[in-house]
C-alpha cells in the first residue's frame, strides 16, 4: 500500500512536495493564454490547420503520458499503440449509431448493439478498458527489463492488431470502422493535453514521482529504501495505458476512422522518439519534441506528395533521433525541466 498512500498531497514541507499557489496561478494563466491562442487559430486558420493543431495536441499528450512510464519509471514500453487501438475500438463501438451497428457488426451482444453513447462516457470507458488490459498483462510483462520488455510490448501491438484484424463480427476485420461520428474537435484535444500535462506534472513533483525516478535509477536501492517497485511500475504502466487508450479514442473520433493498422509500430517509434529527443522524464522536453516532430512531418507531407518520395519524413525523423543519440544522449532537457519552466510553475527549485 506504500505507493498509494504517497499519492495524497501531504502538508509536510519537504522540498518540492507542495505546489505553491504562485505555480498554480502561472499554470492557470498559461492555460488561458493557450486557450485564447487556440480560439484565435480556430477562427483565423483553415479547418485543415485546426485539425493539425488537434493532432499535435494529442501527439503531445501521448508523448507526455509515455514520459510517465518510460521517462520517469524507466520501463521501456513500446505498447502505446496497442492500448490506443483498444481504446479506439471500444470508444468507436460505443459511439457508433445503433442503426448501422446491427448490419455492420453482427457479433455484438444485443445490449451493446443497442448502446449509443456520447463522447465523454465513451472516452472514459475506453480509458478504463485500456487500464484493465494493462493491469491484466502488466503483472506478467513488467517482470521483464530493458529491451526484453520493449520487444514484449512490441509483440503486444502485433497481438492486438491480429485480434482486431480477425475478430470480424466485432471489429469489421481489416476494413476497420469508418464513418465514426466526428465528436472530437481541437478543444477536446486541447483539454486532454492540459489534463495529461497537469496529471503528469503533479505526479512527477510528488513523492510518487521521486519514487518512480528512484526505481529508474536503481531498483534494488529503491526497494531497500521502502519503495514497492513492482506496485509502482504497474501504476506507471496502467496510467500510461489509460491515457494512451483515451488518446486512441480521441484520435479515431478526430479522423473518423479506425483500422487494425491505424496505430502501428511506427507510431510507437515516433512517440518514443519524442520522449528520447525531449529527454526521458522531461515533460517540457516531450511537449517541445512532440510539437517539433509533428510540425516537421506534416510540413514534409506536401513535399512527399509532390515529389512522390513517400517515407521521406520518417527517414528524417529517424536520422534526427540517431543524431540526438550521438550528440546529446540524455535528450534536450535531460530528466528535468528547464529552469524557466520550473521557476514559473513550481515556485521553487527542483531537488
Amino acid at each position, binding site marked *: 500500500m506504500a505507493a498509494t498512500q504517497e499519492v495524497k498531497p501531504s502538508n509536510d514541507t519537504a522540498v518540492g512536495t507542495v505546489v505553491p499557489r504562485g505555480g498554480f496561478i502561472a499554470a492557470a494563466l498559461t492555460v488561458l493564454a493557450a486557450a485564447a491562442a487556440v480560439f484565435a487559430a480556430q477562427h483565423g486558420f483553415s479547418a485543415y490547420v485546426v485539425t493539425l493543431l488537434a493532432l499535435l495536441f494529442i501527439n503531445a499528450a501521448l508523448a507526455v503520458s509515455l514520459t510517465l512510464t518510460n521517462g520517469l519509471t524507466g520501463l*521501456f514500453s513500446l505498447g502505446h499503440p496497442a492500448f490506443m487501438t483498444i481504446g479506439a475500438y471500444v470508444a468507436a463501438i460505443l459511439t457508433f449509431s445503433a442503426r448501422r451497428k446491427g448490419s455492420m457488426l453482427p457479433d455484438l451482444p444485443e445490449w451493446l448493439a443497442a448502446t449509443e453513447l456520447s463522447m465523454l462516457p465513451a472516452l472514459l470507458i475506453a480509458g478504463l478498458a485500456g487500464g484493465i488490459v494493462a493491469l491484466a*498483462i502488466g503483472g*506478467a*510483462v513488467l*517482470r*521483464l*527489463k*530493458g*529491451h*526484453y520488455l*520493449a*520487444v*514484449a510490448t*512490441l*509483440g*503486444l501491438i*502485433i*497481438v492486438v492488431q*491480429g*485480434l482486431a*484484424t*480477425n475478430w470480424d463480427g466485432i471489429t469489421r476485420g481489416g476494413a476497420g470502422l469508418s464513418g465514426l461520428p466526428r465528436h472530437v474537435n481541437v478543444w477536446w484535444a486541447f483539454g486532454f493535453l492540459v489534463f495529461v500535462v497537469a496529471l503528469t506534472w503533479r505526479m512527477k513533483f510528488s513523492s510518487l514521482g521521486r519514487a518512480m525516478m528512484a526505481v529508474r535509477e536503481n531498483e534494488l536501492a529503491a526497494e531497500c529504501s521502502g519503495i514497492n517497485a513492482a506496485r509502482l511500475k504497474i501504476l506507471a504502466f496502467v496510467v500510461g495505458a489509460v491515457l494512451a487508450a483515451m488518446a486512441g479514442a480521441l484520435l479515431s473520433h478526430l479522423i473518423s476512422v479506425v483500422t487494425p493498422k491505424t496505430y502501428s*509500430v*511506427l507510431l510507437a*517509434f515516433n512517440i*518514443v*522518439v519524442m520522449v*528520447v529527443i525531449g529527454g526521458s522524464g522531461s515533460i517540457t522536453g516531450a511537449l517541445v519534441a512532440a510539437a517539433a516532430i509533428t510540425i516537421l512531418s506534416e510540413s514534409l507531407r506536401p513535399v512527399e506528395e509532390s515529389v512522390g*518520395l*513517400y*517515407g*521521406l519524413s*520518417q*527517414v528524417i*525523423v*529517424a*536520422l534526427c*533521433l*540517431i543524431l540526438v*543519440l*550521438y550528440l546529446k*544522449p540524455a535528450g534536450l532537457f535531460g530528466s528535468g525541466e528547464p529552469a524557466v519552466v520550473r521557476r514559473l510553475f513550481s515556485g521553487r527549485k527542483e531537488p
Partner: protein
Amino acid sequence: MSQYLFQQLINGLALGSLYALVAIGFSMIYGIVRLINFAHGDLVMIGAFSTLALVTAGVPWPLILVFVLTIGAIAGMTIETIVFRPIRGASQVTGFIATLAVSIAIQNSALMILSGQPRNFLFPAGMRQRVGLGGVNASLTDIVIIVLTLALIAGLFLIVYRTRLGTAMRATAENLTAARLMGVAVNRTILAAFAIGSALAAVSGLFWGGKFGQIDPLLGFVPGLKAFVACVIGGVGSIGGAMMGGYILGLAEVLFVGLLPQEFSGYRDTFVFLLLIVILLVRPSGLFVRQTEERA
C-alpha cells in the same frame, strides 16, 4: 507418415530455415555486443531486392548466391561502422532505439526508392517442380532452401569453431575487455560478426522471394521480430539455440495454420507473439540454455 503431414513438415522446415538464417545473425550480434539489432530484419529485404535486381540482370543463380552474401556482408558492415560503433557502450535501451531508428530509416528509404508496390519473382521453373521422395512428394524449392541453409550453417560452425576468427569471436562474446587485453582485434572481430550475420540474413531474403513469390520494401520487419522470438526460444546469444529456435518457430507456425481450422489461420502472428511473451515469462533464458543468464 501421411502425404499431407510430410508436406507440412517440409514446408515448416523451409520456413524455419528462413527464420534460422535471420536468427543466427541476430544471436551472434547479441552475443558479442549485447545489442538487439532490429535493423537485422531489413537485411532480409535488402537481400530479396538484390536478388531481384541480379535475376533481372540475367546473372546465373550460383553467382547470385555469392553476390547476395557479399551485398549482405557489406550492408551489415556499413551499418555497424556508421551507426552502431559510435554508440557502443551506451545503455542497452539507447542501442535498441538506435537500431529501431536504423530499421525505420532503411524501410522508408527503400519505400522512397522502390515504391510500396510489391514485386513478383520466382525461382526458375526447374526449381519449382515437385519431387517424389519415397512415395510422398515435396516442393523442390523448399528442399533446396533446407539443404542450402544447412550447408551455410555448417560453414558457419566451421568458421566459429575451427578458425582464429571464430576463436576471437567466442572470446569477445565471453568478455570483450579481456579479449582486447589478450590481443584480440575487437573492432575487427565485431565487424566480422556483423558481416557474417548480415550475409546470412540477406540469403534468407534470397529464399524469401523463391518461397513466397512476392517481395516488398517492408517485408523485413516481421522476420526481424520473429528472429528475436526464435532467439528467445533457443536462448539469446547462442548460435545453435537460434538455429533450433528458428526451426521450432517455422514448424510451430506451419502446424498452427495446417492443423487448426481455416478461420484461425489469420491469428498466426498473434500466436507467435503470445508464444514469445509466454516463453519470456516461463523460461527467460531459453528452452535449451541450462544456466540462468541475467535478463536485464
